Protein backbone atom coordinates (compact mmCIF):
# COMPACT_ATOMS: atom_id res chain seq x y z
CA UNK A 1 0.00 0.00 0.00
CA UNK A 2 1.21 3.53 -0.77
CA UNK A 3 2.48 5.11 2.44
CA UNK A 4 0.91 8.45 1.42
CA UNK A 5 -2.59 6.99 1.36
CA UNK A 6 -4.24 5.37 4.33
CA UNK A 7 -7.82 4.49 5.01
CA UNK A 8 -7.87 7.19 7.69
CA UNK A 9 -6.55 9.86 5.33
CA UNK A 10 -9.08 8.84 2.68
CA UNK A 11 -11.95 9.09 5.15
CA UNK A 12 -10.70 12.46 6.36
CA UNK A 13 -10.62 13.79 2.80
CA UNK A 14 -14.14 12.59 2.15
CA UNK A 15 -15.45 14.25 5.29
CA UNK A 16 -13.78 17.49 4.20
CA UNK A 17 -15.66 17.57 0.89
CA UNK A 18 -18.18 20.39 0.52
CA UNK A 19 -21.81 19.43 0.86
CA UNK A 20 -24.16 19.57 -2.07
CA UNK A 21 -26.11 22.85 -2.14
CA UNK A 22 -29.14 22.93 0.15
CA UNK A 23 -31.36 23.43 -2.88
CA UNK A 24 -30.15 20.15 -4.36
CA UNK A 25 -30.58 18.25 -1.10
CA UNK A 26 -34.14 19.59 -0.89
CA UNK A 27 -34.74 18.73 -4.55
CA UNK A 28 -33.55 15.14 -4.10
CA UNK A 29 -35.54 14.73 -0.89
CA UNK A 30 -38.66 15.98 -2.68
CA UNK A 31 -38.11 13.53 -5.55
CA UNK A 32 -37.94 10.64 -3.09
CA UNK A 33 -41.25 11.55 -1.50
CA UNK A 34 -44.36 9.76 -2.70
CA UNK A 35 -45.92 12.89 -4.10
CA UNK A 36 -42.83 14.70 -5.56
CA UNK A 37 -44.80 17.95 -5.49
CA UNK A 38 -43.91 20.31 -8.31
CA UNK A 39 -44.23 23.35 -6.07
CA UNK A 40 -41.70 22.03 -3.55
CA UNK A 41 -39.23 21.18 -6.30
CA UNK A 42 -39.63 24.49 -8.09
CA UNK A 43 -39.10 26.37 -4.82
CA UNK A 44 -35.99 24.31 -4.06
CA UNK A 45 -34.35 25.12 -7.41
CA UNK A 46 -35.48 28.75 -7.30
CA UNK A 47 -33.65 29.25 -3.99
CA UNK A 48 -30.31 28.77 -5.77
CA UNK A 49 -29.89 31.33 -8.52
CA UNK A 50 -27.01 29.53 -10.25
CA UNK A 51 -28.97 26.30 -10.44
CA UNK A 52 -32.07 28.13 -11.61
CA UNK A 53 -30.14 29.79 -14.44
CA UNK A 54 -28.71 26.40 -15.47
CA UNK A 55 -32.18 24.87 -15.53
CA UNK A 56 -33.55 27.68 -17.67
CA UNK A 57 -30.59 27.53 -20.05
CA UNK A 58 -31.07 23.81 -20.56
CA UNK A 59 -34.81 24.23 -21.10
CA UNK A 60 -34.09 26.79 -23.81
CA UNK A 61 -31.47 24.68 -25.56
CA UNK A 62 -32.00 23.57 -29.15
CA UNK A 63 -31.96 19.94 -28.01
CA UNK A 64 -35.50 20.27 -26.68
CA UNK A 65 -36.76 22.23 -29.71
CA UNK A 66 -39.09 24.57 -27.84
CA UNK A 67 -41.01 27.06 -29.95
CA UNK A 68 -40.94 29.84 -27.35
CA UNK A 69 -38.47 31.08 -24.79
CA UNK A 70 -38.76 29.43 -21.37
CA UNK A 71 -38.65 32.18 -18.77
CA UNK A 72 -39.70 30.51 -15.54
CA UNK A 73 -39.02 27.31 -13.64
CA UNK A 74 -42.64 26.25 -14.01
CA UNK A 75 -42.22 26.60 -17.77
CA UNK A 76 -38.99 24.55 -17.48
CA UNK A 77 -40.87 21.79 -15.67
CA UNK A 78 -43.43 21.72 -18.49
CA UNK A 79 -40.78 21.67 -21.21
CA UNK A 80 -38.30 19.24 -19.64
CA UNK A 81 -40.50 17.27 -17.33
CA UNK A 82 -39.86 17.15 -13.63
CA UNK A 83 -37.34 14.34 -13.64
CA UNK A 84 -35.25 15.62 -16.55
CA UNK A 85 -35.10 19.00 -14.86
CA UNK A 86 -33.94 17.34 -11.65
CA UNK A 87 -31.29 15.39 -13.53
CA UNK A 88 -29.91 18.53 -15.15
CA UNK A 89 -29.86 20.38 -11.84
CA UNK A 90 -28.05 17.51 -10.10
CA UNK A 91 -25.47 17.38 -12.85
CA UNK A 92 -24.78 21.10 -12.65
CA UNK A 93 -24.57 21.00 -8.85
CA UNK A 94 -22.06 18.16 -8.71
CA UNK A 95 -19.90 19.74 -11.40
CA UNK A 96 -19.89 22.99 -9.44
CA UNK A 97 -19.15 21.24 -6.15
CA UNK A 98 -16.13 19.27 -7.28
CA UNK A 99 -13.24 21.24 -8.71
CA UNK A 100 -10.91 20.20 -11.48
CA UNK A 101 -8.00 18.16 -10.05
CA UNK A 102 -4.39 18.80 -10.97
CA UNK A 103 -3.51 15.15 -11.47
CA UNK A 104 -1.44 14.19 -14.52
CA UNK A 105 -3.07 11.27 -16.31
CA UNK A 106 -6.55 12.03 -14.96
CA UNK A 107 -8.78 13.11 -17.85
CA UNK A 108 -11.37 15.36 -16.18
CA UNK A 109 -13.50 16.08 -19.26
CA UNK A 110 -13.46 12.44 -20.37
CA UNK A 111 -14.52 11.34 -16.89
CA UNK A 112 -17.46 13.72 -16.93
CA UNK A 113 -18.55 12.63 -20.38
CA UNK A 114 -18.48 9.05 -19.17
CA UNK A 115 -20.39 9.97 -15.98
CA UNK A 116 -23.16 11.79 -17.82
CA UNK A 117 -23.54 9.05 -20.42
CA UNK A 118 -23.66 6.38 -17.71
CA UNK A 119 -26.31 8.40 -15.90
CA UNK A 120 -28.46 8.56 -19.03
CA UNK A 121 -28.01 4.85 -19.74
CA UNK A 122 -28.67 3.72 -16.18
CA UNK A 123 -31.82 5.82 -16.02
CA UNK A 124 -33.14 4.28 -19.25
CA UNK A 125 -32.46 0.77 -17.97
CA UNK A 126 -34.15 1.58 -14.66
CA UNK A 127 -37.26 2.82 -16.47
CA UNK A 128 -37.37 -0.43 -18.46
CA UNK A 129 -37.08 -2.52 -15.28
CA UNK A 130 -39.48 -0.49 -13.15
CA UNK A 131 -36.78 0.76 -10.78
CA UNK A 132 -36.29 4.31 -9.45
CA UNK A 133 -35.12 6.25 -12.51
CA UNK A 134 -34.01 9.34 -10.57
CA UNK A 135 -31.87 7.25 -8.23
CA UNK A 136 -30.48 5.44 -11.24
CA UNK A 137 -29.52 8.72 -12.90
CA UNK A 138 -27.75 9.99 -9.79
CA UNK A 139 -25.95 6.69 -9.25
CA UNK A 140 -24.77 6.74 -12.84
CA UNK A 141 -23.62 10.34 -12.58
CA UNK A 142 -21.62 9.66 -9.43
CA UNK A 143 -20.46 6.08 -9.94
CA UNK A 144 -16.83 7.14 -10.55
CA UNK A 145 -16.79 10.10 -8.15
CA UNK A 146 -14.35 8.11 -6.04
CA UNK A 147 -11.75 8.43 -8.78
CA UNK A 148 -12.27 12.18 -8.89
CA UNK A 149 -11.78 12.42 -5.12
CA UNK A 150 -8.60 10.35 -5.32
CA UNK A 151 -7.32 12.61 -8.10
CA UNK A 152 -8.19 15.73 -6.07
CA UNK A 153 -6.77 14.75 -2.68
CA UNK A 154 -4.08 12.18 -3.51
CA UNK A 155 -2.85 13.45 -6.82
CA UNK A 156 0.79 12.22 -6.71
CA UNK A 157 0.11 8.56 -5.81
CA UNK A 158 -3.03 8.45 -7.97
CA UNK A 159 -1.20 9.96 -10.92
CA UNK A 160 1.54 7.34 -10.49
CA UNK A 161 -1.13 4.63 -10.41
CA UNK A 162 -2.73 5.96 -13.60
CA UNK A 163 0.61 6.04 -15.36
CA UNK A 164 1.41 2.51 -14.25
CA UNK A 165 -1.98 1.30 -15.46
CA UNK A 166 -1.38 2.97 -18.83
CA UNK A 167 2.07 1.41 -19.13
CA UNK A 168 0.69 -2.05 -18.28
CA UNK A 169 -2.45 -1.45 -20.37
CA UNK A 170 -4.78 -2.46 -17.53
CA UNK A 171 -7.80 -0.80 -15.90
CA UNK A 172 -6.61 1.52 -13.10
CA UNK A 173 -9.21 -0.06 -10.81
CA UNK A 174 -7.24 -3.32 -10.83
CA UNK A 175 -4.34 -1.55 -9.09
CA UNK A 176 -6.26 0.64 -6.63
CA UNK A 177 -6.76 -1.71 -3.69
CA UNK A 178 -3.16 -2.92 -3.66
CA UNK A 179 -1.64 0.52 -4.06
CA UNK A 180 -4.12 2.77 -2.29
CA UNK A 181 -5.87 0.42 0.13
CA UNK A 182 -9.30 1.24 -1.29
CA UNK A 183 -10.89 1.13 -4.71
CA UNK A 184 -12.66 4.07 -6.29
CA UNK A 185 -16.02 2.30 -6.00
CA UNK A 186 -15.74 2.12 -2.21
CA UNK A 187 -14.49 5.71 -2.05
CA UNK A 188 -17.45 6.77 -4.18
CA UNK A 189 -19.92 5.04 -1.88
CA UNK A 190 -18.44 6.90 1.09
CA UNK A 191 -18.78 10.19 -0.80
CA UNK A 192 -22.41 9.41 -1.59
CA UNK A 193 -23.02 8.71 2.10
CA UNK A 194 -21.36 11.99 3.00
CA UNK A 195 -23.78 13.74 0.66
CA UNK A 196 -26.77 12.01 2.29
CA UNK A 197 -27.84 10.32 -0.89
CA UNK A 198 -30.35 7.47 -0.81
CA UNK A 199 -29.04 4.08 0.41
CA UNK A 200 -29.86 2.54 -2.96
CA UNK A 201 -27.54 5.05 -4.64
CA UNK A 202 -24.76 4.47 -2.11
CA UNK A 203 -25.01 0.70 -2.60
CA UNK A 204 -25.06 0.92 -6.40
CA UNK A 205 -21.95 3.10 -6.48
CA UNK A 206 -20.12 0.81 -4.08
CA UNK A 207 -20.96 -2.30 -6.09
CA UNK A 208 -20.74 -1.00 -9.64
CA UNK A 209 -17.67 -3.14 -10.38
CA UNK A 210 -18.88 -6.13 -8.34
CA UNK A 211 -22.67 -6.51 -8.54
CA UNK A 212 -24.37 -9.28 -6.57
CA UNK A 213 -24.05 -12.80 -7.95
CA UNK A 214 -27.69 -13.65 -7.30
CA UNK A 215 -31.04 -12.08 -6.48
CA UNK A 216 -33.46 -10.06 -8.62
CA UNK A 217 -32.40 -7.37 -11.06
CA UNK A 218 -31.19 -4.41 -8.99
CA UNK A 219 -29.73 -0.95 -9.41
CA UNK A 220 -26.14 -2.23 -8.94
CA UNK A 221 -26.77 -4.64 -11.85
CA UNK A 222 -28.07 -1.91 -14.14
CA UNK A 223 -25.32 0.54 -13.21
CA UNK A 224 -22.68 -2.13 -13.84
CA UNK A 225 -24.16 -2.95 -17.24
CA UNK A 226 -24.64 0.73 -18.15
CA UNK A 227 -21.02 1.49 -17.27
CA UNK A 228 -19.95 -1.34 -19.56
CA UNK A 229 -22.20 -0.15 -22.39
CA UNK A 230 -20.93 3.41 -22.18
CA UNK A 231 -17.32 2.21 -22.37
CA UNK A 232 -18.26 0.17 -25.43
CA UNK A 233 -19.95 3.19 -27.04
CA UNK A 234 -16.61 4.98 -26.78
CA UNK A 235 -18.13 8.25 -25.61
CA UNK A 236 -15.13 9.41 -23.56
CA UNK A 237 -12.95 9.83 -26.66
CA UNK A 238 -9.74 8.77 -24.90
CA UNK A 239 -7.07 6.76 -26.73
CA UNK A 240 -6.71 4.23 -23.90
CA UNK A 241 -10.47 3.57 -23.49
CA UNK A 242 -11.34 -0.10 -22.93
CA UNK A 243 -14.42 -2.15 -22.15
CA UNK A 244 -14.09 -3.67 -18.65
CA UNK A 245 -15.07 -7.10 -17.42
CA UNK A 246 -18.81 -7.75 -17.36
CA UNK A 247 -20.66 -9.80 -14.78
CA UNK A 248 -22.63 -12.41 -16.70
CA UNK A 249 -25.07 -12.58 -13.77
CA UNK A 250 -25.82 -8.86 -13.99
CA UNK A 251 -25.95 -9.04 -17.80
CA UNK A 252 -28.42 -11.91 -17.64
CA UNK A 253 -30.65 -10.02 -15.19
CA UNK A 254 -30.55 -6.88 -17.32
CA UNK A 255 -32.02 -9.01 -20.14
CA UNK A 256 -30.69 -6.93 -23.03
CA UNK A 257 -30.48 -8.23 -26.58
CA UNK A 258 -31.47 -7.62 -30.18
CA UNK A 259 -33.47 -4.56 -31.20
CA UNK A 260 -33.98 -3.14 -27.67
CA UNK A 261 -30.22 -3.19 -27.11
CA UNK A 262 -29.61 -1.48 -30.45
CA UNK A 263 -32.19 1.17 -29.58
CA UNK A 264 -30.48 1.72 -26.24
CA UNK A 265 -27.13 2.33 -27.95
CA UNK A 266 -28.69 4.89 -30.30
CA UNK A 267 -30.68 6.54 -27.53
CA UNK A 268 -27.69 7.03 -25.23
CA UNK A 269 -25.56 8.43 -28.05
CA UNK A 270 -28.30 10.81 -29.11
CA UNK A 271 -29.09 12.05 -25.60
CA UNK A 272 -25.43 12.33 -24.74
CA UNK A 273 -24.91 14.66 -27.66
CA UNK A 274 -27.62 16.98 -26.40
CA UNK A 275 -26.65 16.75 -22.75
CA UNK A 276 -22.95 17.39 -23.31
CA UNK A 277 -23.73 20.44 -25.44
CA UNK A 278 -26.03 21.79 -22.77
CA UNK A 279 -23.82 21.07 -19.78
CA UNK A 280 -20.57 22.17 -21.49
CA UNK A 281 -18.56 19.54 -19.68
CA UNK A 282 -15.77 20.95 -17.55
CA UNK A 283 -17.00 24.55 -17.80
CA UNK A 284 -18.71 26.65 -15.17
CA UNK A 285 -22.34 25.64 -15.16
CA UNK A 286 -23.43 29.23 -14.76
CA UNK A 287 -21.52 30.53 -17.78
Amino acid at each position, binding site marked *: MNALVTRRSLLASIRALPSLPEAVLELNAALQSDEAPVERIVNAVASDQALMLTALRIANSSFYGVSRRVVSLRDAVQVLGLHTLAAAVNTAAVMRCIGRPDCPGFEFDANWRHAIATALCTRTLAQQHGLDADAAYTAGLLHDIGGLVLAMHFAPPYSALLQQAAAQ*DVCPSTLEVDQLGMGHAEVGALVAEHWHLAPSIVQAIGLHH*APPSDGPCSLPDLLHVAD*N*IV*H*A*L*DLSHTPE*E*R*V*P*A*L*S*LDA*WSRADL*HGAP*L*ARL*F*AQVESRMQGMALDMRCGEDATA
Partner: protein
Amino acid sequence: MTPELPALPPTPAEACDLAPAIDARLRHLFRSFLTQGRMHPLYLPMRHHRATEKPE
Protein backbone atom coordinates in the same frame (compact mmCIF):
# COMPACT_ATOMS: atom_id res chain seq x y z
CA MET B 1 -16.72 -12.03 -12.74
CA THR B 2 -14.62 -12.05 -15.92
CA PRO B 3 -16.71 -13.50 -18.74
CA GLU B 4 -15.04 -16.89 -19.10
CA LEU B 5 -16.66 -17.72 -22.38
CA PRO B 6 -14.77 -19.98 -24.78
CA ALA B 7 -13.28 -18.56 -27.93
CA LEU B 8 -15.81 -18.44 -30.72
CA PRO B 9 -15.22 -18.83 -34.44
CA PRO B 10 -15.97 -15.80 -36.60
CA THR B 11 -19.65 -15.49 -37.41
CA PRO B 12 -21.40 -13.72 -40.27
CA ALA B 13 -22.29 -10.99 -37.78
CA GLU B 14 -18.66 -10.50 -36.88
CA ALA B 15 -17.85 -10.18 -40.52
CA CYS B 16 -19.92 -6.98 -40.59
CA ASP B 17 -18.56 -4.62 -43.15
CA LEU B 18 -16.87 -1.98 -41.07
CA ALA B 19 -14.52 0.72 -42.18
CA PRO B 20 -10.97 -0.30 -41.20
CA ALA B 21 -10.60 2.55 -38.72
CA ILE B 22 -13.90 1.70 -37.01
CA ASP B 23 -13.06 -2.00 -36.95
CA ALA B 24 -9.64 -1.29 -35.45
CA ARG B 25 -11.07 1.03 -32.81
CA LEU B 26 -13.71 -1.52 -31.81
CA ARG B 27 -11.11 -4.26 -31.47
CA HIS B 28 -9.01 -1.85 -29.39
CA LEU B 29 -11.93 -1.20 -27.04
CA PHE B 30 -12.47 -4.92 -26.51
CA ARG B 31 -8.78 -5.84 -26.53
CA SER B 32 -8.83 -7.23 -22.98
CA PHE B 33 -10.95 -10.09 -24.31
CA LEU B 34 -10.12 -10.46 -27.99
CA THR B 35 -6.39 -10.77 -27.40
CA GLN B 36 -7.14 -13.71 -25.12
CA GLY B 37 -9.53 -15.31 -27.58
CA ARG B 38 -12.55 -14.55 -25.38
CA MET B 39 -15.85 -13.02 -26.42
CA HIS B 40 -17.56 -10.14 -24.60
CA PRO B 41 -21.39 -10.03 -24.69
CA LEU B 42 -21.33 -6.49 -26.09
CA TYR B 43 -18.79 -7.08 -28.86
CA LEU B 44 -21.06 -8.40 -31.60
CA PRO B 45 -23.99 -6.07 -30.81
CA MET B 46 -21.61 -3.13 -30.95
CA ARG B 47 -20.16 -4.28 -34.27
CA HIS B 48 -23.70 -4.49 -35.65
CA HIS B 49 -24.47 -1.04 -34.25
CA ARG B 50 -21.43 0.50 -35.91
CA ALA B 51 -22.18 -1.28 -39.17
CA THR B 52 -25.77 -0.05 -39.32
CA GLU B 53 -25.55 3.46 -37.91
CA LYS B 54 -25.89 6.34 -40.33
CA PRO B 55 -22.71 8.34 -41.04
CA GLU B 56 -22.60 11.83 -39.49
